[in-house]
């Protein structure tokens, strides 16, 4: 029973053997396989189902899931509830009618849990019935509120089944369920059960919410229990471990190969300040780190909010966990993000509550309808300079090229604004709402602030905030291209512009010396070289300005904010992209997120961070992600911990946004590629989420292997 580590120091052992064995089984697909055997609930028996309105279909579906999803209680578990239907693993409401999945589910959000823990679900029912007294509600608003009631009733059914199942066999669990989630949690164990039960039900219905700030949610409960000696630290760790292990219930032993299975957006955010400005870091923060450190669980990607005052003790723990590899822990620059949110007009209390959408895009949890729209900026540039066109345009300076590119970039941003905001939302009778009917989302709507008050659903401006975010992909590729053209054509005059474009059209064929020249002799983004980094900074600033400009052109309250990402799309894009002016051939994998193009960075992790931080990242309000891979050998010994902490501190000082450090060595990855069976739990972090390496297809695996590394000994 080995939990893989990239470090030469083995993972610590703190949990009991049975907990560890249970974790091992779960990580190796025991429960995911089980879920696949019961993919969905069949609705064929419902009469005239097809003719029903969507909301009713949805309500029936949720109720049927609650009534029929298999109940699972593992002997080792200390909290119960399980998302046992296989279709949910694929982001589908797990019901089928005549063999077809019929309803979509929701992700990219973190729902609100604190109200649930403190007040209990019963309060929600009261809030809804009170709201239903309003005589001015429209029919659809009334139907929506009833649909929310249906969610609570369904949860009561599901809860009832667990009560019955635990009554004789598991009095410990039964006792918890008598209190939560319907009544307020009174201690750590109940709070944990309440949180899990609701999260689990929301997932069972096919949605993929994040968890958010688990230490903030649970810390006070644990503090009190420890103070009153109801629990000791290791008992608390065992309880919390149940939560983490149960969170692996969707891992399959032989998952279909794709872009990774461990990406159900169940993100956790740790530490940082609370609404009043006090540091949250507490016992739960450290216990959560203990658990992922020991069990190598990557299914809850963790991001820690670092700020100027983050304690050394916490940074030390983060570094220790990071060093084991798997990229389980990433970091946010809290001070910068709070600045960003203040610029966006969020209240200081909302801003301070930030978590993410289940990936790394920051949002106000429980209050935000969020989605992002990715696009490939490199392809825009390729078109402007004529690589993808019949005729090669004439340009006489790099500034002319950049101006033409910006025109097209703006057209893209504007088109995204029109399609995702203007055409989606309208102001009717003074209220901003969705233009057209939206899909039912009652399960998540119940846990979003504003949906009950407004009697509007998640996609219908129910939550406090609606956010749409265009995400620029290939920003480092564009910066490198502009720089290479500037040098090669206009400064060193090695080739004319049209000859260069022709060479790129021909995939550099018959221009090999020139190709290797640009590839080797110029210094690109990621090496702390001001010339090329200036292009990157300028591009991101101009992009942010364009997005902001769109946002100010009408009265629509939807927040339209810029972000920088590819989330692995560089793989999908590769076959359709062209050869690049910085010496890459068609089809080669280029930059991921805001990280350097693989193979162009040769000065180490610090230089990468510096290049990235030169951009004014406060303007990228949705976030910009930097992925760094470091060989474990350069992080060995106590100085390895010091080095990791120094990287985090430098990242904060220089104004980074989000950074994930992965410490996997190529050798291990190559071995894993050859012997997937031996490396089932080896996880790597791919552009914002974690994946088990062996679940990735060859292309993805190769990309990770190629991602340049900083191994200087």
């Amino acid at each position, binding site marked *: 029973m080995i939990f893989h580590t990239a470090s030469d120091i083995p993972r610590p052992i703190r949990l009991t053997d049975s907990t560890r064995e249970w974790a091992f089984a779960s990580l190796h697909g025991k429960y995911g396989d089980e879920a696949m055997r019961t993919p969905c609930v069949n609705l064929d028996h419902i009469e005239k189902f097809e003719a029903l309105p969507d909301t009713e279909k949805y309500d029936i579906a949720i109720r049927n899931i609650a009534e029929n999803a298999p109940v699972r209680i593992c002997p080792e578990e200390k909290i119960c509830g399980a998302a046992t239907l296989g279709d949910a693993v694929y982001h589908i409401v797990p019901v089928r009618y005549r063999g077809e999945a019929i309803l979509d589910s929701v992700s990219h959000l973190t729902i609100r849990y604190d109200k649930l823990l403190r007040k209990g679900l019963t309060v929600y029912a009261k809030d809804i019935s009170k709201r239903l007294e309003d005589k001015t509600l429209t029919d659809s608003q009334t139907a929506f509120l009833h649909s929310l009631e249906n969610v609570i009733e369904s949860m009561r059914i599901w809860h009832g089944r667990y009560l019955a199942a635990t009554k004789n066999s598991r009095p410990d669990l039964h006792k918890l369920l008598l209190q939560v989630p319907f009544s307020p949690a009174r201690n750590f164990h109940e709070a944990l059960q309440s949180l899990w039960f609701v999260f689990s039900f929301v997932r069972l219905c096919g949605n993929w919410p994040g968890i958010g700030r688990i230490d903030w949610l649970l810390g006070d409960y644990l503090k009190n229990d420890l103070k009153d000696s109801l629990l000791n630290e290791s008992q608390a760790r065992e309880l919390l471990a149940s939560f983490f292990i149960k969170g692996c219930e969707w891992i399959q032993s032989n998952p279909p190969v794709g872009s990774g299975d461990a990406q159900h957006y169940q993100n956790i955010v740790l530490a940082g300040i609370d609404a009043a400005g006090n540091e949250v870091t507490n016992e739960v923060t450290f216990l959560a780190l203990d658990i992922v450190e020991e069990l190598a669980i990557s299914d809850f990607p963790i991001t820690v909010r670092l700020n100027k005052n983050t304690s050394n003790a916490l940074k030390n723990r983060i570094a220790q966990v990071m060093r084991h590899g798997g990229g389980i822990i990433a970091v946010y620059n809290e001070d910068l993000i709070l600045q960003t949110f203040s610029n966006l007009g969020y209240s200081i209390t909302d801003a301070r509550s930030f978590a993410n959408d289940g990936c790394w895009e920051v949002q106000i949890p429980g209050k935000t309808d969020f989605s992002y729209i990715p696009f490939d900026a490199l392809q825009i540039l390729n078109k402007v300079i004529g690589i993808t066109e019949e005729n090669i345009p004439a340009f006489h300076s790099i500034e002319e090229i950049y101006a033409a590119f910006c025109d097209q970039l703006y057209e893209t941003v504007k088109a995204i604004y029109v399609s995702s905001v203007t055409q989606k939302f309208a102001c009717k009778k003074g209220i901003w709402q969705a233009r057209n009917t939206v899909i039912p989302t009652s399960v998540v709507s119940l846990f979003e602030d504003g949906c009950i008050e407004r009697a509007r659903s998640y996609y219908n401006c129910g939550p406090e905030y609606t956010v749409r975010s265009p995400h620029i992909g290939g920003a480092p590729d564009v910066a490198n291209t502009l720089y290479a053209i500037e040098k090669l054509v206009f400064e060193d005059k090695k080739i004319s512009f049209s000859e260069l474009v022709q060479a790129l059209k021909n995939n550099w064929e018959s221009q090999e010396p020139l190709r290797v020249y640009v590839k080797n002799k110029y210094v690109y983004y990621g090496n*702390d070289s001001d010339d090329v980094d200036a292009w990157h900074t300028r591009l991101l600033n101009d992009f942010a300005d364009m997005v902001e400009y769109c946002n100010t052109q009408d009265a629509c309250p939807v927040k339209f904010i810029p972000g920088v990402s590819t989330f692995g799309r560089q793989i999908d894009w590769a076959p359709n992209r062209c050869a690049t002016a910085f010496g890459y051939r068609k089809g080669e994998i280029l930059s991921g997120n805001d990280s350097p193009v693989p193979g162009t960075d040769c000065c180490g992790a*610090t230089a990468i961070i510096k290049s990235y931080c030169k951009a004014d990242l406060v303007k990228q309000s949705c976030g910009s992600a930097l992925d760094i891979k470091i060989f474990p050998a350069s992080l060995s010994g106590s100085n390895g911990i010091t080095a990791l902490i*120094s990287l985090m501190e430098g990242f904060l000082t220089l104004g980074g946004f989000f950074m994930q450090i992965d410490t996997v060595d190529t050798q291990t990855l190559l071995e894993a590629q050859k012997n997937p069976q031996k490396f089932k739990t080896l996880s790597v972090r791919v552009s914002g989420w974690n994946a088990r390496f062996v679940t990735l297809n060859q292309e993805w695996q190769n990309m990770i292997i190629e991602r340049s590394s900083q191994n200087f000994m």
Partner: protein
Amino acid sequence: MLPVTKIQRFCTKDGPGIRTTVFLKGCPLRCVWCHNPETQSAFNEFFYSDNLCIYCGHCASVCPANVHTVTPMEHVVNRMSCKRCMKCIDACPTGALERCSEWLSADKIFTQVMKDAAFYGASGGVTFSGGEPTAHAPALIPLLNLLHCNNIHVAMETCGYFDPAILPELVKTTDLFLWDVKDTDERRHINNTGVSNRKIIQNLIAADSLGAKTILRCILLKSVNMNAKHLKGLISIYHSLAHCIGIELLPYHTFGVSKNGLLGQAEIAHKEWIPSSEEMKQAESFLREYVHIIHN
């Protein structure tokens, strides 16, 4: 001006914290196990990597001395006639030809090493290595002073073989010495490095009496110096020093040999000298009773 072979960022093995290591060219010793052969000679040299060469012939066409003979299949480098003009390096598009070093002013080096100042934190800083940094003392000391005045932690990896007259200045501006003690046996030292170890040990003791903080870096070569006598010798040196914070043991490795090839030199890998990790552990546990062992 200083002959720099490389300024390497994000080093985690050359002293505490994150460091930028500046490698200087030229060394008074000729260790048979040297793993940075390009830093030995003070001459300008170049690396040639055949696997990067695309046989374009650009080098041959600019070379005034017919050093390069390039055919579509083969590139023969005849360094004997090289005038060290470095024209071929600039002409090579692929990086197959690479300068071993560049002359940089202290200011330029200072600017380079300050690029990572944000990452040095409380413990990190700059390390000078080589070659032998003290071989360039007159040009180096002002740079050390500059760093010192800017509160940058300075470490120096030295073979200890230098004119003791520079010691006071050196100790004043250097926060930590990574002091090589290659062998405590004088005869072997002479045989394997070309010089006696006497001056090295004397300098070490003199530096210590001036308050220099040191880590002794000791290369261990199986069947050369990996014996009880040498280890005991290390212990007694350690105990004669008031400011030594520990001993770091370095197993001999053969990575440097790849660079001999790039320099057009014979590639002699003494595999028989590589100690096993078991043997390293044994040596370590022997020493551990008497000295503080540093792991990096």
